[in-house]
Structures are given as structure tokens and as C-alpha cells.
């Protein structure tokens, strides 16, 4: 049984994988359309790398299926349809950057010219350098060049910017933008909220092996961010509170109301107009970061 529509760039269907007692990936369904740039966002241990490994055919799912443009992952790798930059990918310390890229290019039927891959990844100046002598950020960019040289339709990146400093990170994303502007599909795993916000069209939030939320950046932001107003409002009903301008959700408990707001200013004005007796008002900001943590925290808390 496969729920993936034809033409999807990536189709993940009922995917599961466990290691001993740990259910690393616990039932994931995901369809990515061609041209989408998707962030797989989640804290460490959420199951991002395990998902990515199965997408690349590096490990076998316990159950469920993965297709890449209708192909099995191994076939997609072999045909150069999918390319990847792994979290723990290695380079040969005694080979130069140029040799490494040329070697991998030579394994494909239709690679990018080596110089072009080096250039796009911003490592053209490192071509003669031994891989063992690169800094962490440089290594990451060389591995990015390795992922680009097969000229893949779908690019998968697992925590691509972890070892990079701010400037390198900026360069990296600039190169990524160039690549995605050609209509290519990208899935990148990250635990940096800002990266997901800034570079993805769509964010898939993962928590404990499951998809906790899935939507556009604006949708995710609306679900997780904003301010909260609490107040004592005699006689207020949830129904009336929910329809106040700027309010996303409302709750009444023991005479105290809680309003989850998209626009707390508008909500407060409307609240005071309609319920002039409101007292003991508090407004707290829920940062995107806090909300993200709340959304991805373990449910056991």
C-alpha cells in the first residue's frame, strides 16, 4: 500500500525504525512536491538522521516505504536523482579537495563539471588542499560540493551548518539559494529554528520519532508564537473570547482566562472594551524559541 501521489519528489509512508527499545522513527508520513525546500526541524534525538538514512537507502526501515521520484532509495542514489550531505560524512585525509570531488564525479554518468561544483560550494580556492588539513566549516563545504557534483534533483542535508561559523553559514545558505532557485527539491534536517524559518518553504517539526507539526513557515509560526494574555474576567465565556480580534485560542479556568494571541495589542483593546471589569491582567511573550521547545519537548513533562 502506498499513499504517495505520482510525481512526488519524496514519498514517505508509514515509516518506522527502532534501535532496541528506542523507537527512533515512529510512523512518519510525508510527501514532498518537486521544488519544495523543506526543513526537518527537531531537537537532538528526534529521529531526523534516522529518517534521512532511510531516505538515502543507508538503512532499511522496519516497516513503511520511501520513494524518491518513484524510485527506491538505492536506485535513486545510483541514478544520481538524490544527493546528500550526511551529518557524519567523511573525507579522505590524504586526498586533496579537487581529487575527492573529481573521484566522486567520475562515478556518475552525468556529473557537474568539477570546477562548477567547487565554485558553487565556495571551495574553489581549496582545490589543492589536503582534506585532512581543512577546518570544520571548510570540510562541510567540501562535502556540500560532493553532494552537488552529481547534480541531483533532490538534495538531502543532515545538519549541514553545524560546524560552521556565522560567515561560513551565510555563504553556505547563499550557495543553497542559488541551487534551489533552479527548482530543485531540498530536504534539510536542522535543530536551528532560525535556519528553518529563513530558508525553508515548509517546516516539518519532528519530536520523538513523530511529525509534531507540518506546514508553511507562517503556519508554524502562527501555531507556536505570539503572546499570552491572562486576566480575571467575571462572567466571560470561551465562545465570546475566542472571536475577539487577535485571539487564536482561549481558555477559562477558575474565573481566570487565558488568551493565546496572534496580535496581543488588538486583543487587549477588544477585551477591555467588551469586558471593562477585567482585572489583574498579565501579558507574556512566547518567543518562537520557547514555543518550539514546548512543541518539541517530550510529552512526559
Amino acid at each position, binding site marked *: 500500500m502506498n499513499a504517495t501521489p505520482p510525481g512526488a519528489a519524496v514519498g514517505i509512508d508509514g515509516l518506522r525504525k527502532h534501535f532496541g527499545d528506542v523507537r527512533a522513527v515512529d510512523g512518519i508520513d510525508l510527501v514532498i512536491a518537486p521544488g519544495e525546500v523543506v526543513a526537518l526541524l527537531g531537537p537532538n534525538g528526534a529521529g531526523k538522521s534516522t529518517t534521512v538514512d532511510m531516505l538515502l537507502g543507508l538503512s532499511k526501515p522496519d516497516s513503511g516505504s520511501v520513494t524518491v521520484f518513484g524510485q527506491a532509495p538505492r536506485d535513486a542514489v545510483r541514478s544520481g536523482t538524490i544527493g546528500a550531505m550526511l551529518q557524519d560524512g567523511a573525507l579522505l585525509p590524504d586526498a586533496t579537495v579537487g581529487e575527492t570531488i573529481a573521484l566522486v564525479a567520475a562515478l*556518475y554518468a552525468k556529473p557537474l563539471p568539477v570546477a562548477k561544483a567547487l565554485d558553487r560550494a565556495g571551495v574553489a580556492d581549496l582545490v589543492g588542499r589536503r582534506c585532512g588539513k581543512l577546518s570544520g566549516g571548510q570540510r562541510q563545504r567540501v562535502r556540500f560540493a560532493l553532494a552537488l557534483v552529481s547534480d541531483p534533483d533532490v538534495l538531502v542535508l543532515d545538519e549541514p551548518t553545524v560546524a560552521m561559523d556565522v560567515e561560513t553559514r551565510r555563504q553556505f545558505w547563499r550557495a543553497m539559494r542559488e541551487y534551489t532557485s533552479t527548482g530543485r527539491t531540498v530536504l534539510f534536517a536542522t535543530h536551528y529554528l532560525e535556519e528553518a524559518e529563513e530558508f525553508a518553504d515548509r517546516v516539518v517539526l519532528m519530536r520523538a520519532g513523530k511529525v509534531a507539526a507540518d506546514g508553511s513557515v507562517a503556519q508554524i509560526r502562527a501555531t507556536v508564537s505570539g503572546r499570552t494574555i491572562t486576566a480575571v474576567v467575571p462572567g466571560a465565556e470561551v465562545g465570546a473570547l475566542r472571536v475577539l480580534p487577535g485571539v487564536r485560542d482561549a481558555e477559562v479556568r477558575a474565573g481566570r482566562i487565558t488568551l493565546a494571541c496572534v496580535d496581543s495589542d488588538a486583543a487587549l483593546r477588544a477585551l477591555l472594551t467588551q469586558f471593562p471589569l477585567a482585572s489583574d491582567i498579565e501579558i507574556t511573550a512566547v518567543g518562537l524559541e520557547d514555543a518550539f521547545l514546548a512543541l518539541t519537548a517530550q510529552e512526559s513533562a
Partner: protein
Amino acid sequence: MNTTYLFLELRRSLRSPRFMIFTVGFPVIFYLLFSSMYANSDPDAKTVLMAGMAGFGGLTACVSTGTRIAVERSLGWQRQLRLTPLSPSGYMIAKAICGMVVALGPILLVDVIGLATGVSLNPAQWLQVVLGTWVALIPFAVLGVLIGQVATGDSVQAIGSATFMLLSIGGGLWFPPEQMPGWLRDIAHVLPSYWYGGIGRDVVMHDIDAGTTVLVLVAWTVGLGLVVMRRFRADTARV
């Protein structure tokens, strides 16, 4: 076979100090040293020494190349290669072929130095010493791959060095089997390196049993090849 891959492997070998010392430096130095010490006035001894040291260099190069598999696995390079069209079996075959190509270096070098220092053979004998020795390295290329499969990145250097030293000494590459104690000579007959070394020694000794030599070396190749394949299936099934 991908020539880009092959050339990179060759360049990496030339860059490796360890490789240059053990597989190129040692055979050349020991040939020059021993031949000036013991064989200056004995052309036959010099020829045997040349063939032995060329064989030692070739064997070392061949086995060492395969053992890099273990190092590259522990680095994570094989995982990286699994993101390319190169199959795991293709990777191992490439390593075996590289071992064969790399081994040509020390064989040719020692033989050329032999020629320059007065070893005199007819063309057929040179062919036997160079080409015969080289072709007979096939089982050792497979052995190198096997060690690369089973060893860890930490243990592989010790295992690899012990293997090529024991095979070289036990096979009569360092000193001829005639000089071995009897018990060692009995053991030597089981080793593929004894028959491998016999090809070069024969130009002086004229004692080769061509049929048995081929048979033993083919048997070792097939036997080691089967173990490699078995191990390979077990490894890929574990994914």
C-alpha cells in the same frame, strides 16, 4: 574499472610515507645491503636476492592496499561512497585491482636496480621474474581485501604487517627455503608465498613445478575469494 579512482589510489600510495618506506624503501635498501654483503661475487645469489626482494615489495604493496579498506571504513569513507553509484563490491574489486597495479612499482624498481647492479638474465627469464611474479600476486590482492574486511581501523596495521612479514619470511623471500630449518620448510610449502616466490627463484634454481604452482595459487585465490564473498554477504545483510 574507473581510471580516475585508480589514479587517485596510486597518488595516495605515493604520498603515504609508510607505504613508501615499507614497500619501496625496504626492498630496495635490503637488496642493495644484502647483495653487497653476501652476493658480490655470486651472481646467482644476487639474482635470488633481487627476485626475493622484488617479490617482498610486491606482496607488501598488494596486501597493504587491501588493508586500507579497514581504515577507510573506520573513517566513514565507505558510508560516503554509499551515496554514490559505486557499489560495495565494486569498491572492493577496485581495491584489489589497485593492489595489483601498485605492486608493479616495487617489483619493477627492484628488478631495474638489479639489472643496473649486474644481474644478468635472458629476456624469457626477465619476463618470468617480472610478469610471472606479478600475476602470481592475485591471491595476495584478495587476501588484502579480506584483511580490510575483518580488521578494524586500529588493528589493521598490525595484522597487515604481521601478515606480509610472515608470508615473506615463511615463503622464502628473505632467504631461500634451502637455508630454512626442516620444520619451517614443511610449513612453507602450505603458504601461497612459497609458490609465489618460487617463480622468481626458478630462474636460478630451475626447480619450479609449474603445475603445482598454478594449482596452489589458484586454490588460494578461490578459497580466499569465497571467504571474502561470504563475509561480504554477511556485512551487507546487516544493514
